[in-house]
Structures are given as C-alpha cells and as structure tokens.
C-alpha cells in the first residue's frame, strides 16, 4: 500500500487531515449502480472513504456496456452490484467495499431500518415515489441523503438533511479580520509606539499598513467628534491624507494602506448572516443540543458582553509590506487577542454545558478554537423534506423561476423531471422510452406536466414545446458524460457533508446539458 499521505497529498491540501479522517470513518450506501451511481462512488473511493455498500438488483445487460465503465463484456448476465463493486475495490484497497444484490425499491418498502447503519446514502435513478419514502426513512434515522439522477441531457442533485452546520466553510474571498474600524486597546497602544514620521526612509516604507491605518483613523476621529470617515467626500479626504503621508513614490506600504482604507470605513459589528444565525431558536440550548449550537449560544453571549458587538477575533493577518520585526510583533498582538477571546468563549461553553447538565469538558479545545477562528464564517443549512417541497413548493419562487430568463429552462426541466415519473406511473414506461410512440408520448407528457403545474397552483403551461419534445427525445436515457457530471456533483456534495467543510448546495441542482446554463432552485 502506498504511503497514504503521499497518495492523498493533493486533496489533503484542500480538506486537511481532519477532513480526511472524517472521510475514512464514513460508510456510504449507494442505491442503483448505473453510470450515475458508479461514477459518484468512483470519486469517493479514490478519495478514500471508509466503506461503501452497493445496492442494485439488476443484471448487467449489453446496453450497460455503452454507458458504464465499471462493467465489461465478461459482466453480462452477472449481478451489476457485484461487478461494479469489484471494479471500485480495485481502485483503492483501503476502502471496504461490499454489495447487496437487491432492488432498492424493495429495500425501501420492506426493510427501512436497513439504512440507519450508514453515514450517508446516495440514491440514484429513483422515481418520485421511492425518493419520498426513502427521504422520510433517512430523516427519521438521521442519515444524510443525496439524490442524483441523470436523464438525457438533464438531471438533478438534491441534498436532504434536517440540518447541516459548518464551522470551516472556507470561503474563497472573505474580508480579513483586522478591526481597523474598531481597534482594541493593545493594538492601539502598539500603534502608539510607532512614529509614522520616522526620519529613516527604510523604516518609513516598512511600517505595515495596519499601523498606518489605525493611527490615521485615530487622528481622524479626534478631529471628527469620534467618528470615522463615512461620506464619499470624507473617504476621499482620508485617502488624500494617506497619500500626503508618503515620503517617496515607491512606498508599497502606503499604496497598500490606500487600497485597504475601505476596511476603516466598514461598519462595525457582525454580518447579517451571523446575526441571523445567532437569532436562531436553536441557540436556546438544552441537553440534546449539538456541540455547534452550544458553542453558538456561547458566541451569542460573547458578542453582547465581552465582544462589544464583535465576534471573537480570527487572529491572523495577511502578508503586507513590513519589516520582519514589526510584522511578527503585529502577528503576536492579533494572536494574543484571539487567544484571549477564545478563553472567554471556552469558559462560557463550559458554563453552558454545566447548566444543561452535560460534561463541562465535553467539547474539545481544538473544536472551540476552530469555532472561534471561523466565527464570522459559520453556516447553517436546512433542507425541506422532499414530500413538503413536492406537494407545497414555494409558489412565488416557482413563478419567478418560470418567468426568469436565466432560470426558465432549469425550472422547466425540474417540472418535466417530476412529470416523467407521473407519466410512468400512468403508462408503465417513460415518455419516448420506446421508438414509435413519440407523438403520442409528447402530447401525453405535455398534459401530465400541465396537470402537475396546476396541482402546484400554477395555471397555464409556460413550458415550451421544444423542451417537452427534448424530454421525450431523451427517453430516460442515461448518457455517460451526463452521468459523469451528475455523479461528480453528487460526490462533491458527499465530501462537503462528510468533512463538514465548505458549503453544500442549498436547493435542487438542475443540470442543463443543452447550453450548460445549469441552476440551483430553492423551492
């Protein structure tokens, strides 16, 4: 076996050892191992998930050879689950792979408790009726669930979990936490020890912009009744003052200060997103609350008390032009403040745990530290039960999507993907599944779709003939490239749910393989 650290190097750089450990602990169940399901698992097996269980009751047919890489000619007539499982095992011997030759629909009907053993279930190519049933089973058993389906040039991925909370959301671009608009006493007094008008030109151009801005902001406040620049004119003036502080044109630190001056102008306090999370009713914790919500309750207390309206300091600073000494000292000041904030939160967490009758040391220091460092980036994702969305979708959203140019095709596919399941419940085959019935199927599908829309409270058919025709042309085909795309998206969402890093999709992802204008629909 290869040294796992080397083998997984390129992904460890993304989700770290903790993320990897979570993956290696996870047990994943796959329902139906056509190309969509197989490709989903392939990406997870390569990444090193703990175990997989492949469930499929069908035998490999010749037509499977045309779209599924995990079966070959020697597999024809054999259990598809067995063949796919054998191929997947070949990809990574660290993964425990097993299969069960059974139809997922039958398992859902007869053995619902079966699913509770898994961390996560990936359900592919199921029709609506089975999806709704499985959704309830997994919700009840607190098992994470992802639906994926490929259908001609369209398809969807839908996450279903009661609640998913994220500490390490790792956003791409996020404003650093420098507090230039609200410096704490230690930062201020450090800034006071530094003279911006130092005569030595080398020292002058190596004063970090953080210091420049803290000092200039303080000076400004003194002459402006304690407030910082807020109007356009004031901001312009402030930047002019910075420019006037330069003694040479090549002073990168001053250029950085001018560029970063918006950080002085930014409003104090926490973001709207965080305000929303701390006002969630889950912050009223009890003995059953998750660690996340316990820490959140502590955070809420911190913000109104010690934080003075701010979250705990993140504690890291970006690179900036500076002498090594000033930069390192500045780093220490930020780290010390972050450490102090963390200690306060930790104490509050302990108190809360005691109050709700749990072990005061029940949440690890590492966890609380990470929570504090990421306090500004916390995410809470909740998903409606499929049945609720299907029977009672958000009508205003639905109307908006249907008429919005960017969303109408995706919304059309969403409706049609549901309509084909109604169709098959009535006619025992998917529209266009067989040649020779196309014209009849097109008009039947149209009637079915219109009926579905009117059941949802949407009258008149805004679906175009072109889209309905295309859907019939697709004839329930599972094209390999589409399955690989959908499987790729599904596996990515699995990774986000398991590692608890990054942010999973918030609605139903609709793939549009015609012009690639795929969309997320929140209904």
């Amino acid at each position, binding site marked *: 076996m290869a040294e796992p650290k080397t083998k997984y190097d390129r992904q460890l750089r993304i989700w770290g050892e903790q993320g990897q450990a979570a993956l290696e602990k996870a047990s994943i169940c796959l329902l139906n191992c056509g190309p969509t399901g197989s490709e989903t698992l392939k990406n997870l097996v390569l990444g090193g998930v703990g175990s997989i269980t492949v469930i499929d009751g069908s035998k490999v047919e010749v037509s499977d050879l045309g779209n599924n890489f995990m079966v070959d000619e020697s597999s024809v007539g054999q259990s598809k689950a067995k063949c796919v499982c054998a191929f997947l095992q070949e990809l990574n011997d660290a993964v425990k792979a097993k299969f069960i030759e059974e139809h997922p629909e039958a398992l859902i009907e007869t053995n619902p408790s079966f699913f509770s053993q898994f961390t996560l279930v990936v359900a592919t190519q199921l029709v609506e009726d089975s999806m709704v049933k499985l959704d309830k089973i997994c919700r009840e058993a607190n098992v994470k669930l992802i639906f994926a389906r490929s259908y001609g040039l369209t398809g969807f991925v839908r996450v279903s979990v009661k609640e998913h909370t994220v500490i390490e959301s790792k956003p791409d671009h996020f404003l650093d936490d420098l507090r230039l608009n609200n410096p704490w006493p230690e930062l201020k007094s450090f800034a006071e020890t530094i003279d911006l008008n130092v005569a030595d030109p080398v020292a002058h151009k190596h004063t970090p912009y953080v210091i420049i801005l803290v000092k200039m902001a303080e000076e400004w406040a003194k002459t402006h009744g304690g407030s910082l620049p807020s109007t356009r004119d004031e901001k312009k003036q402030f930047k002019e003052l910075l420019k006037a502080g330069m003694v040479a044109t090549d002073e990168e630190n001053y250029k950085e200060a001018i560029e970063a001056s918006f950080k002085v102008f930014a409003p104090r306090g926490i973001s709207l997103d965080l305000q929303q999370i701390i006002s969630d009713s889950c912050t009223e914790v009890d003995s059953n609350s998750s660690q996340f919500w316990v820490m959140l309750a502590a955070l809420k207390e911190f913000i109104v008390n010690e934080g003075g309206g701010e979250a705990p300091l993140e504690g890291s600073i970006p690179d900036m032009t500076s002498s090594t000494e000033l930069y390192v000292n500045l780093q220490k000041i930020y780290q010390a403040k972050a450490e102090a904030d963390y200690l306060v939160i930790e104490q509050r967490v302990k108190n809360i745990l005691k109050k709700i009758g749990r072990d005061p040391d029940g949440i690890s220091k590492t966890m609380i530290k990470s929570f504090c460092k990421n306090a500004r980036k916390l995410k809470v994702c909740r998903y409606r039960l499929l049945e609720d969305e299907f029977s009672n979708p958000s009508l205003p959203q639905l109307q908006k999507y249907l008429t919005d140019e960017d969303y109408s095709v995706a919304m059309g596919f969403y409706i049609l993907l549901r309509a084909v399941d109604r169709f098959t419940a009535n006619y025992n085959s998917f529209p266009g599944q067989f040649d020779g019935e196309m014209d009849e199927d097109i008009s039947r599908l149209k009637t079915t779709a219109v009926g579905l829309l009117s059941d949802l409270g949407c009258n008149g058919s805004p679906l175009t003939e072109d889209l309905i025709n295309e859907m019939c*042309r697709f004839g329930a085909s599972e094209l390999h490239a589409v399955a690989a795309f959908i499987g790729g998206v599904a596996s990515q969402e699995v990774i986000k749910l398991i590692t608890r890093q990054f942010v999973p999709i918030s609605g139903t992802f609709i793939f549009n393989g015609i012009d*690639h204008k795929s969309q997320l629909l929140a209904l």
Partner: protein
Amino acid sequence: MSHSTVQPSRSRDLDKLLLRPGNLVAPTFEPGTQLRDDLQEYVRILVVGAGGLGCELLKDLALSGFKNLEVIDMDRIEVSNLNRQFLFRLEDVGKPKAEVAAKRVMERVSGVNIVPHFCRIEDKELDFYNDFSIIVLGLDSIEARSYINAVACSFLEYDSDDNPREETIKPMVDGGTEGFKGHARVIMPGVTPCFECTIWLFPPQVKFPLCTLAETPRTPPHCIEYAHLIKWDEVHSGKDFDPDDPEHMTWVYTEAVKRAELFGIQGVTYSLTQGVVKNIIPAIASTNAIISAACALETLKIASGCSKTLSNYLTYNGVEGLHIKVTEFVKDKDCLVCGPGVLIELDTSVTLQKFIDMLEEHPKLFLSKASVTHLGKNLYMQAPPVLEEMTRSNLSLPLFELMGKVPKDVVHVTGITSQNDSKRSCLRKLRVVFKAIDGVTDMDMAGGA
C-alpha cells in the same frame, strides 16, 4: 426503472440522442444510424494530457460513441496521482501515463482504439495535429495550452474577405481545474475567441520580490523561497535544484525552518515546502470528473450536432454551494494567433537567414531560434541535428525562391518567444508578401495584422 424490450444494443442510450430528431440542436444535425457510424469510423479525437482530466476524458469519450482516440502526455505516473487518476494503480507508478491510460480504457471498452504518444507536445510535427477532427485539452499549464492553441490556429485559413474557411477550423475543447473550481470552454478558431484572445483570464503567477526574501521575510513561503531560490545557489554552486529529488527538497525544508526560526516566523512544514517549491495545485476527483464530463459532452455535440454547443466559456465553483456560469467571450480581431497572421513584407532578395534574423527583432513577434515551414515543407529546422544539416543550405537562398516564387503565401514558424521576461515555445503563422510582384496591390497590405 423499467426495462427495454427492444433488441439489446450497446448504444441504446446514446441512440436516443443520435437517431432521433430534435428542436434544440445544431442546424447541421442529421440524426440516423449513419451519423452514429460516422462518429465511430471517421471522427478522430486527440486528448492532450493523460492526467486528472485526461483519464476522465478518455473514459467519457470512449463511452460517448467515439472509437478513434489518441492521447499524448510526456509524464510518468506518480503516487500522488492515485487520488484522482483512476486508470492508474500503485503498480503502475513510474510507467508512462499515456500508455497505461490507453491500455486500461481499451481493456474495458471493446471496439475503442486508443493510440498513446509518450512524448512532449512540441515533439510532434504539425501534420500530426492536423489529422484530428477535434483536439481536447486536459492540461494544467498555460504554456502547453498556448502551444496547442497556436498549433490548431495555424491550420486556419482565411478567404479573400478575411472570413475563416470553414473546412480549416480545428475545434478545441479545453478544461482546467483547481480544487473545487474549474472551467470548460469551446474554441472554434476564427469564430470564437482562441486561448490567446482571452489570455488575461490566466494572470501570471505572482512572484515574491527578491528583496523581501532576502531582507524582510514575513511568511513561511518567504522563508521557503529564500532557501530554494537564494540559499541553494549560494551553497551548491553550479548544481541545479531538482524538485523531484527528496534530498534536495529536505535540504530546502531544513534551511527554510532555520530561517523561520531566525526571524520568529511560524508555520514552515515539509508539505508546505513542497507546495511552494513545486507550485502544487490541489486537485480532487470530483472536480476533474465534472469538468471532463462537460468537455466530453461538448466534443460529442461538436462532432454530431445533437444539441446546441456551449457558447463559449463555462466557469464552475463548488466551494460555496454550486455556481455555474456561462460567458460568451468575443474574439480579439487583432489576435496574433487566430487572426489571419502577421503580415511581413519582404524584398524578393531576402535570404532565409535574414528572414529568421528579422523575426527576432520584429516588435510583435520577438521570435528566436526559428524553424520555418512552407506548405508542410521544412525550409529550415533547428532540430533534430539531421534535419538541421539537411536544411542548412537553404539559409543562404532567397526566401522568395524557396517559396516557389509566389507573390504571397503563409509560412509557419516555430521558435522561442520572449515576452515580459518569460520565454516559451511558440508557433506563429506569418503572411509573407513580396514587394513589387504583380498581383499584390496596396489593398492586400492594408489589412495587415
């Protein structure tokens, strides 16, 4: 799902798309078994790169109705490839990627033929690339993309109204990934922007100023780059640093740690050292699968017309939820690469040697070490030595004579271009016009690039 009762066929699913008429398709789409057979028999696709994207692409294309595939890659398999390059196993480490990838796909998908090429993309003659219907790129370097782009654009010819000749358009489909992000694009040279038209989409990597490394290091990467770029040369005079030599890497790491301690900087690790020195781009299986699938689907659409094509640039970001955006970029009409070609006006007496010297000074080209071909004939080749010797005598002959005394024509030149301090292989198409030859009017010169 219900089972089909019709005759079992390997292409059951694909047939729905290829055999049935549709409304949202290309104007050229002619559904039928003929189309399916033609895709198998006549369409030839080159996959450039057999790495994370290349492995996926070969599988996706082999299962999208294509039977004639070739793949080119100069790399050998490494252990760190195994988390995503699913055609490779631990026992394959050290073997050429192209060869193993081709073999594995052929083993599983019968009837597909994949020819591997274990070499640099620059090692192939231009004619090699002209043989393919579509070129699909699964690369991680801007230089390699730029080179293939220039090759594909070099086949493009313009008619007298400066419109691209349809039959000379060599379509490219390009994919790229980094972590949870990626892009897929379709390039129709002369019609949609080529790689060079939108080169600004790939900003050059930011390098640390040497004075920061030497005098005011602040971060772990500063310490690592000091050890790598400054200290190594000071200590190992004349010995090149080899990033693949673990001893070299360990030396840089140890030096970086010492420097970090000296300045009170925290956070130098071996893994970070490797990442900084080798400029490692994080990569995962799921993103590669998504981007490759989009590229393979577009390849199928270009070849068959079975649906509209991507117009023309897709960006994908899965960090926070999932964002897919399609942007229709426009081409740069003055592009040196996909435009009609740089116009060069010459006296009939100019020798090939003088012409080559001129290219080095040319304000748009800065092209050194030039090899010149005309209508597929080598006029002068810098390498290999056999060809150099064979063509050396041409250097003293007038280009006019070497080109068969035509008043104007296109020549292809490969060489090294140096721009903004960086050197790279390039291929340029030049429109050579000889002065004072009948048939050349001022009008022809006016539209120069």
